[in-house]
């Protein structure tokens, strides 16, 4: 066990990063940024307004043309150098991210930061390999298709994986040759600036611009600007719809990732033997507590087949009780702090309605009150509810370490329950039978079906939603399509006129 020290590398104040330098907010105002670990502020951050967003868009437009013309090999080199720099500072970045978000250091060290590093490398690779196409229309006519960047894009980042989600959006946008104006979440506005302190010298000025602030004051002007060619957003449905409305006014594309209520399905044969596979499946069940449940694909509905329901659920409850809460900077801690006070309050409101609806609490069910400096932080006990799929705790993403369990009879029943949701982002299927796995995976209406695994997010596996979970596929080279437009040169090599005129 290692207990890391609280980070000391923060500046006391962060301005906007615009045009390669730090710029004070136009309105001169800042907001405090508390760590969810203790609830205490550790820095203050510029409170951006429309004027700041305009300035950032100006800077991006100033840089976009040259960056878009930069050879793919050179753009890839920048991304690889960013990745190398992050690798050199992996531990410091992990500590910063834990302090910012409240998540356990074991996750930031093993997942958030390594995945972000690899993501930059992945898009550095795929942009080198990307080719346009040509079509021979007839003997004299050729259609050439070129990938061209969109220009200046806006990106609005969520607070659950501040650095990784920023990377998911930055890497493909930059690889494709765009300049970016990025607004971090106001709940987690600072860790991106620590990253910038490490990599800003690698980026041409104006290619990456970061404007902090509240959604209504800084996010809205960015999302509604006619001067951004595309908006990417991860968040929830109402804001997603609002961003689509703004985009419709400007006839601009959007990509949206809006969450889910992901089913995790455990067929009877999981318990056919008490072996490594069953142990892995129990870990898969317990993945609802990863990142304190603050994951768009949190496996927050567990569907357990009737034949092994009682035994498997008992083992799952026991496994969940082994989840170790504690200081997020302690390497033994498995579940840390929720990201904000309002997030804590929302989770508690769902624990309340779950009980009112008649769901049984099998373990947890309350705020976790930790001692010492953690007493002011935002902690929740990992919680298992048992109930039915019509309950609101089965239909809404609580975004906390809370799973709702029910049973199913057979494959058709499992698929019916799994698909009885407004969303379709992630799902899990656990079985020893490849035919069952295949049929369930194809029948579930979700963009990602983890099969005998869960919560893996490797680059090169497309990630995105069906139904109300959004538009677009991140984490894969196909995301380049969402940051590029197609230029067709239709060229005639015929020396003679058509004869029409």
């Amino acid at each position, binding site marked *: 066990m290692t207990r890391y020290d609280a980070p000391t590398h923060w500046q006391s104040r962060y301005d906007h990063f615009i045009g390669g330098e730090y710029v004070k907010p136009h309105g001169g105002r800042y907001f405090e940024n508390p760590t969810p670990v203790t609830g205490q502020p550790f820095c203050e951050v510029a409170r951006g307004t429309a004027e700041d967003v305009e300035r950032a868009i100006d800077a991006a437009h100033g840089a976009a043309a040259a960056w878009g013309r930069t050879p793919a090999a050179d753009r890839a080199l920048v991304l690889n150098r960013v990745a190398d720099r992050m690798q050199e500072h992996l531990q410091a970045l992990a500590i910063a991210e834990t302090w910012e978000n409240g998540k356990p250091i074991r996750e930031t060290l093993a997942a958030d930061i390594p995945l972000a590093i690899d993501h930059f490398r992945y898009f550095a690779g795929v942009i080198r390999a990307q080719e346009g196409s040509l079509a021979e229309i007839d003997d004299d006519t050729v259609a050439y298709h070129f990938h061209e960047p969109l220009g200046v894009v806006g990106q609005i980042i969520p607070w659950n994986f501040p650095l990784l989600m920023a990377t998911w959006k930055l890497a493909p946008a930059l690889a494709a040759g765009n300049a970016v104006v990025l607004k971090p979440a106001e709940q987690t506005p600072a860790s991106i600036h620590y990253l910038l302190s490490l990599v800003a010298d690698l980026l041409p000025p104006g290619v990456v611009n970061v404007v902090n602030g509240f959604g209504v004051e800084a996010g809205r002007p960015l999302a509604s600007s006619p001067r951004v060619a595309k908006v990417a957003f991860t968040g929830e449905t109402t804001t997603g719809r609002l961003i689509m409305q703004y985009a419709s006014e400007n006839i601009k594309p959007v990509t949206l990732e809006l*969450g889910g209520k992901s089913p995790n399905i455990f067929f009877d044969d999981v318990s056919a033997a008490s072996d490594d596979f069953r142990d892995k499946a129990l870990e898969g069940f317990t993945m609802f507590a990863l990142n304190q449940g603050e994951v768009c694909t949190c496996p927050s509905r567990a569907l357990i087949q009737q034949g092994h329901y009682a035994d498997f659920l008992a083992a799952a409850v026991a496994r969940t009780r082994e989840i170790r809460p504690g200081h997020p900077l302690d390497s033994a801690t498995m579940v840390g702090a929720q990201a904000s006070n309002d997030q804590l309050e*929302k989770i508690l409101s769902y624990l309340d*309605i779950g009980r009112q609806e008649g769901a049984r609490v099998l373990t947890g069910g309350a705020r976790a009150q930790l001692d010492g400096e953690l007493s002011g932080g935002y902690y929740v006990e990992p919680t298992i509810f048992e109930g039915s799929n019509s309950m609101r705790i089965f239909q809404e993403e609580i975004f906390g370490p809370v799973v709702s369990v029910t049973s199913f009879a057979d494959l058709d029943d499992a698929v019916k329950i799994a698909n009885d949701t407004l969303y379709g982002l992630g799902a899990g299927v656990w079985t020893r039978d490849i035919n069952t796995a295949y049929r369930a995976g194809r029948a579930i209406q979700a963009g990602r079906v983890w099969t005998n695994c869960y919560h893996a997010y490797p680059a090169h596996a497309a990630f995105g939603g069906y139904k109300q979970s959004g538009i677009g596929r991140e984490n894969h080279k196909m995301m380049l399509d969402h940051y590029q437009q197609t230029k067709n040169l239709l060229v005639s090599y015929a020396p003679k006129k058509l004869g029409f005129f």
Partner: protein
Amino acid sequence: MSDLVAVTPAAAELIRSLRGQHGPLMFHQSGGCCDGSAPMCYPAGEFRTGSSDIRLAALTVAGVPEPVEFWISRAQWDLWQHTTLTIDVVPGRGSGFSLEAPEGLRFLLRSTLARRASDSSGEPRQPRQTAGSPSPPTAGGGGGGGGQ
């Protein structure tokens, strides 16, 4: 009080304050991840409701000249209609483009069971859609919600 949506005194106070700063207001109930489940507060008309939405209430808040409409998507309400909603407010950091975030506060929805989810008897509850009959004031009476 609206049959379906109530407002706590603290939320009513925040609504009055936001009305003074931003003019007439509306709510649209969000779903999905991150700040999902939050009742988003906008200048009236900022969020364009359509045939996929349903107006649950036109809330009358003391000190606010016009009713504040509360909207939700029909698909979401289908799943929620066995509950009664109370708009509350807690210290918070932000929530999409909702107006209250810069105040260091955040609207929070609390829910109370109206009838059991498994109870299929009785008609689905529908909001009163008569535009001319907004709900009576709730600011003095507090919400009916299950507080923590």
